[in-house]
């Protein structure tokens, strides 16, 4: 029983990381109507930035995360400006998708060049041991707790931002109708840029948490979590913020449960099987709107 509980808690923690990544996917999709397949690699860049800050420059963990957030935010704005914006309004969505895959490889190879393929062993940003319950039978690590709390804080902050600020309302308007948003006086390009900035900043946080929980960092670290977060976003209903959160959590719990009780090797296959079943049963995702929007 305690074992099961422990697995669930770890699943929620992993799921919170997926959720934070999925939020970036889903926001960019909702507003720019594109799948940013390079999003996962921004996590990896975030991981390296935290690593560099902490190990090479001796920053304290918080400062290192802040540094990574700023770095990734700028990276997000830059890739959007250089790679995606020129293609906006292009006749084919495929062009943007292929460009995103190109950006993904570009980021991986740049990291390969700078940091080499040798795995870096990451030092956790959280030094807290965690808590011990039930006479030491149930140990919850500090990073696990911090990750869950971070997930909740990010979700609440984002909801508040979207509901309460003008920029947040502008995002909603742009996601529904760019032309009508322009007629309100909203600068659509700036709004898209802001969305990339927020998504990439969140990716840096996800990178720091991910590398702290699974402390091996290579240029390919972001690829798999990126794809799983994409699955989470689709599962929850792409474009929906609570959906991304729910999808991420479900995926994290499903993955840890499969690893614990079925098979470590099969866990990823199970995750993708869940996606396929979901797409068959409810193509719009758990919290997604019906797919009646204009194509």
């Amino acid at each position: 029983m305690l074992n099961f509980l422990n697995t669930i808690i770890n699943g929620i923690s992993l799921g919170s990381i997926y959720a934070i990544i999925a939020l970036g996917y889903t926001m960019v999709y909702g507003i720019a109507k594109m799948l940013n397949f390079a999003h996962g690699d921004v996590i990896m860049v975030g991981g390296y930035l935290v690593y560099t800050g902490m190990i090479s420059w001796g920053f304290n963990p918080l400062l290192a995360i802040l540094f990574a957030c700023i770095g990734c935010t700028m990276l997000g704005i830059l890739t959007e400006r250089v790679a995606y914006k020129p293609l906006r309004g292009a006749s084919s969505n495929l062009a943007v998708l292929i460009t995103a895959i190109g950006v993904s490889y570009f980021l991986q190879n740049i990291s390969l060049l700078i940091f080499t393929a040798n795995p870096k062993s990451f030092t956790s940003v959280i030094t807290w041991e965690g808590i011990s319950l039930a006479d030491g039978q149930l140990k919850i690590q500090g990073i696990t707790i911090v990750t869950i709390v971070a997930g909740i804080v990010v979700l609440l902050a984002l909801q508040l931002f979207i509901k309460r600020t003008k920029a947040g309302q502008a995002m909603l308007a742009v996601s529904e109708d760019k032309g009508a948003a322009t007629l309100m006086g909203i600068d659509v390009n700036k709004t898209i840029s802001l969305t990339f900035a927020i998504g990439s900043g969140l990716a840096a946080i996800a990178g720091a948490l991910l590398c702290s929980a699974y402390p091996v960092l290579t240029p390919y670290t972001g690829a798999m979590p990126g794809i799983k977060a994409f699955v989470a976003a689709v599962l929850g209903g792409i474009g929906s913020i609570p959906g991304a959160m729910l999808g991420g959590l479900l995926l994290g719990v499903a993955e840890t449960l499969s690893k614990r009780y079925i098979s470590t090797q099969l866990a990823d296959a199970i995750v993708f099987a869940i996606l396929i079943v979901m797409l068959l049963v409810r193509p719009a995702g758990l919290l997604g709107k019906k797919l009646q929007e204009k194509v």
Partner: protein
Amino acid sequence: MMLEVKDLEVNYGMINAIRGVSFHVEQGEIVALIGANGAGKTTILHTVSGLIPAAAGSISFEGTDVRKTPGNKLVSLGMAHVPEGRRVFAQMSVLQNLKLGAYTRKDKAEADETLEMIYTHFPRLKERRSQLAGTLSGGEQQMLAMGRALMSKPKLILMDEPSMGLSPLLVKEVFHIIEFCHEQGITILLVEQNARMALGIADRAYVLEVGSINMEGNAKELLESEEIKKAYLGG
């Protein structure tokens, strides 16, 4: 002069949709732009409000050349546009839609006053302020689209087929709202397929036929013209 468009040309790829159109709107006027489906009315309004680029010609708003001004910048200059098909933000509440209308306004207290004014004149919007705009009826959505435009405190409103798809009773109501906007001192450029109603309310009118203007003049005179009667008023 509120708005002056000269020799406007607009293309969609290889298609030449607007071919040298010139017209103007004086301060305080209601000017109607009528014409059959596909004549290019929406294209002209979209070009004036900066949603699509002009290939040639000039557009000046209160004497400033705005042909190259991005659409979102025109709002704070005093131009509002109630687009064809209303295009309210369906997933947002009525109040959120109205507030987005005031997106460019700096003074929150003044914007709140405008909101109160709109609530007074459109009590139905007030009743439904927390409802999602997508759940409103067609007439209510049109009202919301017009209220949203008023929220920017415009000098000029471009209206694209505000009566489209509405019952005769609601059409009347929509035209009352247009009159109300006009009484607030707002200049109006009205695009309509309902030529009778449009000419009835307008001071002057232009008749558009496949990308060019082929008639213009006093609205009441056009209403009496045999040619207009035959082509646009059903005999």
